[in-house]
């Protein structure tokens, strides 16, 4: 390049200025995280108690607690995981191990990356039509029921704004993330392992079941935990399907009403009184503790189980 000659001292100066701006930018990220954590801890710490974890919502801040949203979050996340993790792994197996390079495969791949960019609130609208109302095919006022309403296995069609509908909604939101993470895990398995198994006479499904899936499992599990930590913080789609803001019972079966922690935080944070802001901060502390324990499990799995495979 025929650039004009720049003196060495000026080049050294710009070099140093650049290093300092990079450092400053990095410091901003760390500073933000610490300010966020400290300000929330200061505001919410005094409200944390066993009573707070073990009581229902209330109009009086001194008596309000997060029992219903905490258990609601657990139910919804469990359903979400049971639906999204096998579906995600199955799709990844098909795309990475079975599908041949074709126009259909390229289209599906593009479609999945587009789905991962769809705002979560739009998934809420889809779920409202599909799970809560069954596209208007069944009458919402007289749902078709199956089983005893008191029992654990009670189901009704359409689902209505129930725990099951909430879990499936979150499953839609995290499915693209789950598929992409699992695909990357399968891609990281060296082809020599597959070729070895095939050479011993395995069928394609035996190769997956006995060789590639076990080899990819630690990475898949890390991805699954990160996807679940996204699900547990999601509020917008559940708000659209009608997650309740005030719930005075814990879920007993798949058709129970529910609320989740982020919705409860949203409800309290949106009120003008400072006392409710303290409750919101306390609920955020609980949420972050759950989240950080999720993340540390992912980190532990990654470090303990991920032995590098020879290629």
């Amino acid at each position, binding site marked *: 390049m025929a650039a004009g000659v720049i003196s060495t001292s000026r080049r050294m100066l710009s070099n140093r200025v650049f*290093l300092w701006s990079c450092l400053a930018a990095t410091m901003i990220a760390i500073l*933000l995280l610490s300010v966020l954590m400290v300000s929330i801890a200061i505001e919410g710490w005094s409200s944390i108690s066993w009573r707070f974890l073990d009581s229902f919502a209330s109009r009086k801040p001194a008596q309000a607690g997060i029992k219903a949203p905490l258990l609601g979050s657990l139910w919804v996340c469990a359903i979400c995981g049971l639906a999204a993790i096998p579906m995600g792994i199955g799709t990844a197996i098909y795309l990475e191990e079975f599908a041949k390079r074709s126009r259909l495969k390229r289209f599906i791949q593009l479609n999945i990356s*587009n*789905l991962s960019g769809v*705002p979560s609130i739009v998934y809420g*609208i889809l779920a409202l039509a599909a799970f809560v109302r069954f596209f208007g095919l069944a009458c919402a006022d007289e749902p078709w029921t199956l089983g005893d309403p008191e029992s654990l296995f009670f189901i009704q069609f359409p689902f209505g704004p129930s725990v099951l509908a909430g879990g499936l909604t979150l499953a839609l939101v995290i499915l693209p993330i789950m598929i992409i993470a699992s695909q990357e895990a399968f891609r990281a398995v060296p082809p020599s392992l597959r070729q070895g198994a095939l050479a011993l006479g395995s069928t394609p499904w035996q190769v997956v079941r006995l060789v590639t899936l076990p080899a990819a499992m630690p990475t898949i599990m890390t991805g699954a935990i990160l996807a679940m930590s996204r699900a547990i913080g999601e509020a917008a789609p559940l708000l659209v399907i009608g997650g309740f803001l005030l719930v005075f019972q814990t879920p007993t079966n798949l058709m129970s009403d529910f609320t989740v922690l982020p919705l409860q935080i949203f409800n309290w944070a949106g009120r003008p009184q400072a006392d409710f802001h303290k409750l919101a901060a306390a609920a955020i502390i609980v949420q972050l503790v759950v989240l950080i324990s999720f993340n540390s499990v992912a980190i532990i799995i990654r470090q303990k189980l991920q032995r590098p495979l020879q290629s």
Partner: protein
Amino acid sequence: MTALAARSAAEIANRGTPHSALIRRWSEGSIKFALLSMTLLSVVTTIAIVGVLAGEAWGFFSMADQPDISLWSFVTGLEWSPLLGARPAFGVLPLVAGTLLVTAIAGCFALPIGLLTAVYLSEYASSRTRTILKGVLEILAGVPTVVYGFFALTFITPYLLQPLSSGFGTYNAMSAGIAVGIMILPIVCSLSEDALRAVPQSLRDGAYALGSTKFDVSAKVVVPAGLSGVIAAFLLALTRAIGETMIVALAAGGLAQLTANPAEQVQTMTAYMVQIFLGDAPAAGVEYKSSYAVAFTLFLITFVLTWSGAIILKRYREEYD
């Protein structure tokens, strides 16, 4: 140890019991079919999203008792007041403008800081510093967005913005924009860092051999070489910012207005949807149905952005071996 080995050998022998070719072909085929149908579910999801949104939006535009509503007045209208006043107005531009204002503030905040942090991580940091910083970013990425909304409302506005200028109200576009910026910062950072680290070491070595400083190498070699990945990261982050809901619902306010003043309150497309689905608007009412038209607009905007990100990544990628 030997017992274990013997047991697993027996297990392997059992697994290897040959089936007849017919059973084998049949079971392989049915598994493949089951996996294929899981895969097609993602396509069905897309079709269902488009179908539901388009169908309900069509219902909004063809409402018999609302002759004023048309696609043209929706796309070009400068006033959005579905709930107030005697004659509701449905022009989507104020909502789009509110969304773009918040996204622009978030972008001005997060894109430069994110890129500089990515350069630091990939070019300067030791591997130990990198591990720690990546951990910090991973935690930031996992924080639920409603937490950032709470942070904007209870910290950014009263302690950062209001001391600067008395023009900032309780709800303003600036605090929401900064909070959305914090939310997308980890995405910008980790995706750009991946793109920069994918640039082969030989390019850096070549530049150093010509007498470059670290600044020259980073700014004139590494970033240009990884540019397609960096831009794709920017677009993905902006898509997330446009679709972000809980932060703007808490901190940006609820008044749809056409303004570029970040101290004013604005309503975004997502915040309007929250307002409708939270409130008790009757499901057959015009304001309820209008939220579907808004949702379809939002979907189209994010779809175009994601699509162009994929195209940029594919077409302008510099391939190195």
